[in-house]
């Protein structure tokens, strides 16, 4: 798979740790020039150091700030070339039973996990349309398909990403741009490590492969969708969940 992404400019949001970090590493190893984003200066610096060997860079970005999103994508185009691979990975959780959920818990999730995908996708559109090629890959979640108690906000945002991607795939397919989703199952990251032991055991029992996934399992799927091998796949959701859910 090395060098299959030579010459591509990949923007990966939320690349400082977990799945995003693994995706940034994977795309960089495949030859893309990767720009990874983090919400803090320190995070962005760490990404830059990690990707330096492959010529990648770290940048600060709050995906809920529309002007910042446009600014970064413009600056990237000037410095490296137009973004040709966009990976919408940045995401947060604010788990709460609906009866206890506050408006801000709902809104924060929709802004960070769903509206961000709208913003970044829109911002890269002009460059991709002109180039007559592009890959938009968004990270959803198995929860967006199955639902989960305490995650009504998160599930709604993740399901929204899937429907958004299908619509966009139909809009811009004729311009050589594919839009796909990777829906991770239960992956060993900081996000899932925060779960109580009891719910972890219950979840493990539902996974056909009987183990948690690794961030690199998701990164490989993203790498495939970004590669020329996936040119005829669009509007698709690739489930990487060890058999936890089979649609």
């Amino acid at each position, binding site marked *: 798979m090395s060098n299959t992404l030579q010459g591509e400019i990949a923007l990966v949001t939320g690349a400082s740790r977990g799945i995003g970090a693994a995706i940034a590493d994977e795309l960089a190893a495949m030859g893309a020039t990767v720009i990874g984003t983090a919400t803090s200066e320190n995070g962005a610096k760490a990404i830059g150091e990690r990707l330096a060997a492959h010529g990648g860079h770290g940048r600060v970005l709050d995906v809920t700030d529309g002007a910042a999103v446009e600014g970064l994508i413009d600056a990237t185009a000037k410095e490296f070339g137009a973004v040709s691979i966009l990976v919408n990975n940045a995401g947060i959780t604010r788990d709460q039973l609906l009866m206890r959920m506050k408006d801000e818990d709902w809104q924060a999730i929709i802004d960070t996990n769903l509206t961000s995908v709208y913003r970044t996708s829109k911002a890269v559109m*002009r460059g991709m*349309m*002109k180039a007559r090629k592009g890959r938009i890959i968004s990270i959803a979640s198995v929860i967006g398909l199955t639902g989960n108690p305490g995650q009504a906000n998160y599930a709604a945002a993740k399901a929204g990403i899937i429907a958004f991607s299908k619509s966009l795939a139909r*809009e*811009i397919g*004729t*311009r050589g741009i594919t839009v796909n989703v990777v829906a991770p199952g239960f992956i060993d990251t900081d996000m899932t490590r925060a779960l109580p032991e009891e719910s972890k055991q219950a979840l493990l029992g539902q996974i056909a492969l009987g183990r948690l996934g690794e961030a690199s399992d998701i990164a490989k799927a993203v790498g495939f969708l970004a590669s020329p091998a996936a040119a005829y796949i669009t509007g698709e959701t690739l489930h990487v969940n060890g058999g936890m859910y089979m649609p």
Partner: protein
Amino acid sequence: MSTIEERVKKIVIEQLGVKEDEVTANASFVDDLGADSLDTVELVMALEEEFETEIPDEEAEKITTVQQAVDYIKAHTKD
């Protein structure tokens, strides 16, 4: 230096893949030149770049023929 008419015409030919003699002043992008909604968005993008101007969405919607594009450019650019 080409005239604005010539430059607009060239962009329309390139973007919509139509023949030069089809691009008359009153030709409608959608009805006569076979553009779909995405084509019209791209056409406006191309005009914006060629003439280094920004065409607001509500103005862009009103540009449906070659002549309307030419008129808009003439009214909104210096050259």
